[in-house]
């Protein structure tokens, strides 16, 4: 094997076809990273499904604490939901611009998405503290426990998404996103949209449909 050189290279050695900037020469022709993200999102359906089912089972068990009707502020949450929904739009615009190679606009839309997401999370925090003050604590009732667990997990996912968006913004600042590396933006976008569609379900099932 005298003529073979073994090169130890970047650890995620997704094999590259040098005629494309695209990092795949895969059996399906699809990117490893994107495939991995879709698989992950498929599994997340089962995670949130479990939390939502727990909530649906326990929503009516309020044990003397506040009930959903008493405590929810639908107008406020509607605005929050609208903000998160719009953040999906800004995310998709970030991806579109990344594909065009327009780094400046990509960063603009990434930051906007992060800000909208942060607004949503801020709204959640405000909402939770208001609920707590009005008598719905984590351990007050089964409704309380399941509500906070479900929305808390969702909020955590949004926060992780915001961190990814901001990290991505800084990376683009260092000039490492080009044409097909827009895929990284796209993959973060997939995660972000997923977090949004989970909220679409939560908003309807938890807030709009009374127990």
């Amino acid at each position: 094997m005298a003529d073979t050189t073994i090169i130890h290279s970047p650890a995620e050695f997704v094999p590259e076809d040098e005629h494309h900037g695209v990092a795949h020469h895969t059996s399906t022709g699809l990117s490893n990273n994107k495939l991995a993200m879709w698989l992950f999102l498929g599994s997340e359906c089962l995670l949130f499904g479990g939390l939502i089912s727990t909530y649906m089972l326990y929503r009516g068990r309020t044990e003397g604490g506040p009930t959903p009707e008493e405590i929810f502020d639908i107008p406020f949450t509607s605005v929050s939901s609208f903000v998160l929904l719009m953040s999906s739009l800004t995310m998709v615009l970030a991806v579109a611009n990344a594909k065009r190679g327009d780094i400046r606009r990509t960063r603009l839309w990434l930051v906007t998405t992060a800000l909208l997401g942060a607004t949503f999370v801020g709204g959640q925090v405000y909402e939770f503290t208001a609920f707590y003050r009005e008598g719905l604590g984590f351990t007050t009732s089964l409704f309380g426990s399941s509500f906070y667990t479900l929305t808390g997990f969702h909020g955590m996912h949004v926060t992780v998404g915001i961190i990814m968006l901001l990290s991505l913004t800084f990376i683009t600042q260092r000039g490492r996103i080009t044409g097909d590396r827009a895929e990284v933006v796209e993959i973060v976008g997939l995660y972000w949209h997923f977090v949004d569609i989970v909220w679409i379900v939560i908003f309807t099932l938890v807030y709009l449909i009374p127990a």
Partner: protein
Amino acid sequence: MTTAVEHEATPAPGDEHTHGAHTTHSDAFYVKIALVLAALTALEVSTYYVDFGSLFLPVLFALMVIKFFMVVWFFMHLRDDAKLFGRLFWAGLFLAIAVYVGALATFQFFLK
């Protein structure tokens, strides 16, 4: 909104061989989708104020499902992307629905 362009986006150099989403939509397209989603959300919220009677649950469910699929189809590019991605995601989604609806059914949840 600075990117309300009407023409198809021109690919950047090195972008010719983008795998996956072979259709690039204009930004205006996504804005239109977002406006539809916003309208649907408004309709959803209106169920809080307006009495829909027996249509209440079906309307809310329908709206939820439509919004869900619109984001997945258009924003997550599943319409234009490789079928495998969709299959993997729908597999997880439908498995989750089947299994959790089944579990809730054993609690007579749907007999209310």
